[in-house]
């Protein structure tokens, strides 16, 4: 009998501990990023952007009088891990808002989870077009460019410069394929004279680019399109110049300062261009203020991912403000159609697929820049939102199921 009493007491205690409800005078935003492993540096930079946004928001008194609390979650870049941790946050800690930027696989899993629990997820970095295309759902928002939009921007630039011979090189998985397909499609549309003189899909994590580079050289290409990122971009750039490639690159992610530092050969990057939704060199007071504030608080520049995550979080906060509540249904309704004029230009959240309509910025990598000793982005020029937009009917999003 005594044993039974002890056991039931222990169980009751366990229950009480588990339930432990806490008061809700904060808005919780969980950031799902790889904070360990190979992509830690990507996850860290995104997190820094979100954290700074929270500092700015809280310094101004929070959102609707509530403080914003950022919870960093290590997704380990594994959808199973991410959903397990997110489920716990939803069920036990009553977290209703999530964001993340790394790994379309994580995004897919989070989309399902957020739909199931009616929570909200916004991404500032996951680019796979399908996320707001055939996989689109009501609880998922994208505040960055999709592969389609980023490729369209580069196609615009390539067409405008009048290049005739273009080579495409990308990583052999869904992202790389999507990027090349969108680029080729748009370029044909804008400049039928331009010719794709070669296309290579190489395995992720390639170490030796020599065979591909010689293929590019012998094709006589004037410009090389690439959506590569990480080491696949660093090594491609690093090896191309010594092998004698004269053509420049038009790439997704050349404005990554760490990558340029790793290439350690400014000549290999100067003259190439990058297309992104955020860059340090975007003109305007809003961006100047943001850079000044961030640099003062952290001691380094809000390059690339940091800027993307910051701007996205501020946009989300605007939606919560407009909704007047942090209830997910209210925020979704408020965000649809909302316009935000931030550091990276005017953004509008499209209601049909929850894909933001925004300008994409293009900048050439130059030797002399105000930010770093090594080469980095020169002045950014804008490719207007309507030039990179994918019409609602073409996204593959069949509309959202009404709740």
């Amino acid at each position, binding site marked *: 009998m005594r044993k039974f009493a002890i056991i039931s007491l222990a169980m009751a205690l366990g229950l009480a501990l*588990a339930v432990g409800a806490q008061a809700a005078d904060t808005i919780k935003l969980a950031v799902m990023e790889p904070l360990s492993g190979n992509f830690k540096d990507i996850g860290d930079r995104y997190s820094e952007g979100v954290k700074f946004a929270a500092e700015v928001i809280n310094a101004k008194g929070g959102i609707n009088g509530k403080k914003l609390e950022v919870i960093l979650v290590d997704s380990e870049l*594994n959808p199973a891990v991410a959903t397990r941790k997110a489920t716990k946050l939803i069920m036990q800690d009553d977290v209703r808002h999530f964001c993340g930027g790394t790994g379309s696989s994580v995004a897919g899993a989070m989309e399902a989870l957020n739909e199931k629990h009616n929570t909200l997820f916004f991404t500032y970095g996951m680019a796979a077009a399908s996320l707001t295309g055939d996989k689109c759902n009501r609880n998922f928002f994208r505040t960055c460019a999709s592969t389609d939009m980023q490729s369209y921007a580069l196609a615009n630039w390539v067409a405008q410069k009048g290049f005739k011979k273009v080579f495409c090189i990308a990583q052999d998985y869904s992202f790389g394929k999507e990027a090349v397909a969108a680029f080729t499609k748009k370029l044909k549309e804008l400049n039928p004279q331009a010719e794709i003189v070669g296309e290579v899909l190489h395995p992720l994590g390639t170490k030796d680019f020599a065979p591909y580079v010689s293929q590019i050289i012998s094709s006589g290409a004037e410009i090389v399109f690439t959506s590569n990122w990480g080491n696949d971009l660093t090594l491609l750039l690093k090896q191309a110049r010594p092998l004698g490639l004269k053509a420049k690159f038009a790439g997704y992610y050349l404005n990554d300062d760490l990558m340029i530092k790793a290439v350690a050969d400014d000549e290999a990057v100067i003259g190439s261009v990058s297309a992104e939704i955020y860059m340090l060199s975007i003109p305007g007071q809003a961006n100047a203020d943001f850079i000044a504030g961030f640099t003062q608080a952290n001691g380094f520049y809000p390059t690339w991912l940091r800027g993307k995550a910051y701007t996205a979080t501020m946009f989300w906060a605007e939606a919560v403000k407009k909704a007047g509540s942090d209830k997910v249904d209210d925020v979704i309704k408020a965000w649809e159609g909302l316009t935000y004029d931030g550091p990276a230009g005017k953004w509008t959240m499209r209601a049909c697929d929850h894909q933001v309509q925004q300008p994409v910025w293009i900048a050439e990598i130059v030797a002399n820049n105000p930010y770093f000793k090594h080469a980095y982005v020169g002045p950014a020029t804008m490719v207007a939102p309507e030039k990179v937009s994918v019409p609602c009917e073409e996204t593959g999003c069949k509309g959202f199921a009404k709740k």
Partner: protein
Amino acid sequence: MKTLRPQIMAWVIAAVLALLAAPYLLPPYQLRLVTEAVIFSLYAVSYNLLLGYAGLLSFGHAMFFGVGAFTTAVALNQIGGLSIMAAVGLATLATLLVGLVVGLLLLRVKGTPFALLTLAFNALFFAIGVKWHTVTGGDDGLNIALPKLNLGLAVLDPGNGPDIYYLTLIILGGALLFCWRFTRTAMGHSVLLLRENEERMRFLGYNTNITRLILFVFTGALAGLAGSFYTILNSFVSLDAVSIDMTTKVLLMTFLGGTGTFLGPVLGSFFYTYVQDFLSNLTDNWPLIMGVIFIVMVMFAPGGLSGLGQTLAARLARAKTTP
């Protein structure tokens, strides 16, 4: 021994009652953990039938778990109007077939070559998962919309915590009972014989290859069943389900719980699920701690948790009898 019987029965009844009452006692997240632990229990028990009972060390159990998990998702996505139970049935059937084909190929090898070949097959299935993008979704995995399950008397919603819990408990609990019965049958005994002395078994007139094949197919199908429920619980499946990690997981659970008893792996899967949840709250480096626990267990308590429990019980009993 006879005096122990009613006590054990009482414990079993208490455990069953506790499991049935869990949705009323536990907060939603804890209930979900229990559901997950039940799913992994079947997975680990099926693995232990190979390892503990037949002495076959396999490094490829995740291929069954993964095939079950992916078949469920693909079936629900591609076949309109398919009921959940039909998808589970299809998944189990698919794993059964996979077990049969792989089993036939592995029939003649034992020991280390068997272990390595199962590892190779696991890698093969993982590669299929990565590359066959149009069907498996590759790196992106597959989302599924779960249809409600109409049982005539009641409609179950697998998206709802208590509903999926009861469904899992009844079906996987049934499968566990079936496994337990299996170990008591003549077939079950012949599996033990396989482990102890295969040569002698052959002399006695058994076809050991058939025994091994049946066991391989049977445990594979059980793992597939567990995988199927794993997909339903998450309404999502990713490559994680067919990865080497998933094999390591079942190995850990089984060893932690103990390979010597039927219930050891069940204990192991509950232990693993809860400790993982607890540790990942404290640190992102939880696999490190889990690894240390594993090493310590293997070195100092090779019988696992159930072995520890037995030793303790025996000591207590001795302490009671000595005046």
